[in-house]
């Protein structure tokens, strides 16, 4: 028997089936077939391992499923689906994927990752503390008990740091009950929970966040909540309902023009020649801290680090000086033209440095998917400028 004839039986072996004697003899002495058999077995094991991870996460959700009251579902043939749908409670975890990770470090590091569209109402929150920069975040109204506080921020205030986070704990028609966690951390070094934790640290991070003092308030659109945070001042919160998550919701949306030193990418698209390398969809990022920049990650292509300060190729990678023209960045790598198109002006500056690190994973966990993040430390890549005499 030849390999081509035996390969299908290799697959059958993985399913625990018996195979013809000739096939069994061939596989026993054929290195290629045995390699294939090993690969199939490994693939199956890997799939089951992946599934196991997911099912562990689902276990908690299954508990919620137990709370469903199926008796309410009325069996009527003409409108069975409608009645069933109306009387069935939609589990809250369905909307957990709408998790919005918003991180504000200091006064100028908004990262917004607007996830999937939602069919329900969204409360766009605006929070200001000590007359600082406004922090905005969208909260799907039907989301309860998200795995992390869905909107969290850290801001520098009064010589220390204030951390606050919001979650919706109840929804009563036109108003929502907010669970507000807040705490002030004095001193120059932030010592609170890591709200931008990588996924493998998020469990601990969640636990730390939940330990913060929580107070609940009802918020109606149009009203302003005032919450005293000891040491930090008054946290003012307003909100408005929308029927979808807007593409970006930080205060960069209030003014089209970026601030000096700020890089903004709104729903960017990375092009190489005429090829779309990555469409980042609803992702919007902005970075304005000195020595920080933006990182975008394209699966199988690597990382692109963007900085308004000159970068140098002291590390593996390719450097390009790009030109910024309104909402477009143009640059060239290895003789190939690249462009990053953004939904709004990118920066006030005319030049930007791009470091391409092929074969590199993102510096923050992105689960292997396309990714963009702001506030990335560029200091390892910054060019060493000659000292001034």
């Amino acid at each position: 028997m030849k390999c081509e004839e035996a390969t299908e039986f290799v697959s059958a072996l993985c399913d625990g089936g018996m195979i013809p004697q000739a096939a069994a003899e061939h596989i026993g002495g054929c290195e290629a077939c045995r390699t294939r058999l090993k690969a199939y077995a490994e693939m199956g094991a890997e799939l089951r391992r992946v599934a196991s991870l997911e099912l562990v996460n689902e276990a908690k959700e299954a508990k919620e499923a137990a709370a469903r009251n199926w008796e309410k579902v009325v069996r009527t043939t003409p409108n069975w689906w409608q009645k069933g749908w109306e009387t069935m409670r939609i589990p809250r975890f369905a909307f957990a994927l709408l998790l919005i990770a918003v991180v504000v470090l200091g006064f100028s590091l908004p990262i917004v990752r607007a996830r999937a569209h939602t069919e329900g109402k969204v409360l766009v929150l605006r929070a200001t503390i000590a007359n600082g920069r406004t922090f905005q975040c969208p909260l799907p109204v039907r989301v309860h008990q998200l795995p992390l506080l869905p909107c969290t921020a850290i801001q520098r205030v009064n010589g220390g740091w204030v951390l606050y986070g919001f979650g919706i704990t109840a929804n009563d028609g036109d108003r929502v009950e907010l669970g507000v966690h807040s705490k002030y951390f004095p001193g120059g070094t932030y010592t609170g929970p890591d709200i931008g934790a990588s996924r493998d640290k998020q469990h601990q991070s969640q636990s730390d966040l939940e330990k913060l003092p929580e107070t609940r308030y009802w918020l109606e659109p149009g009203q302003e909540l005032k919450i005293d945070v000891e040491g930090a001042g008054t946290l003012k919160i307003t909100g408005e309902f929308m029927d979808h998550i807007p593409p970006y919701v930080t205060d960069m949306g209030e003014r089209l023009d970026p601030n000096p030193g700020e890089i903004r990418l709104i729903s960017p698209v990375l092009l190489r020649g005429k090829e779309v390398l990555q469409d980042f969809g609803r992702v919007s990022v902005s970075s304005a801290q000195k020595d920080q920049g933006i990182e975008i990650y394209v699966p199988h292509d690597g990382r692109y680090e963007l900085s308004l300060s000159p970068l140098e190729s002291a590390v593996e990678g390719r450097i390009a000086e790009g030109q910024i023209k309104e909402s477009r960045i143009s640059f060239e790598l290895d003789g190939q033209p690249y462009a990053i198109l953004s939904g709004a002006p990118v920066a006030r500056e005319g030049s930007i440095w791009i470091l391409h690190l092929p074969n590199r994973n993102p510096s923050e966990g992105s689960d292997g998917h396309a990714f963009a993040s702001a506030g990335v430390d560029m200091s390892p890549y910054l060019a060493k400028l000659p000292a001034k005499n």
Partner: protein
Amino acid sequence: MPDDHQIWERIHRGDAQAFDEFYQQNASRLEAFLRHVVGDRQAAEDVMQETFTQIWSRPNGFQPELGTLRAYLFGIGRKRAAEWWRTQGPKDQGLGTSGETIVYRTETAPAMEDAFRRLPEEQRSLLWLREVEGHSYSELAETLEIPVGTVRSRLFAAREALRKIWQSPRPPKEGA
């Protein structure tokens, strides 16, 4: 432990407790399967709800002599997922729809997930049901509505397709 026929009889009679137990036993596994078929967590959740709603509202489609209740459930789910795929499909390949689908924490899992996602829908369904759910050839035949004799060759084709993608060159790990 009640067999499929007994469970179905109770569900057919409108026994909410029986249906609740059936739901609890199968919901998370069905959702995991659907998530890999449709590639979108929220859509998978919706399709799963529709699947159970259909079973509860119209408990007249299962025929114990033709297959197991599990195969029947996954068959309905798969049909609804295929319908979703045809009518809505993944319109956004960016972070908006696919980026949040699943959480992985190891080096190899994203590669497997990535490779698996690139398979056609039928091959994803086939492999998931076989390798993860442990469905028999006859259950696979019922779920996918193909002859039992075809299952083996389809499984082989799916494994081979996945192997080629999975073992194709990919970027080395950072720092490598």
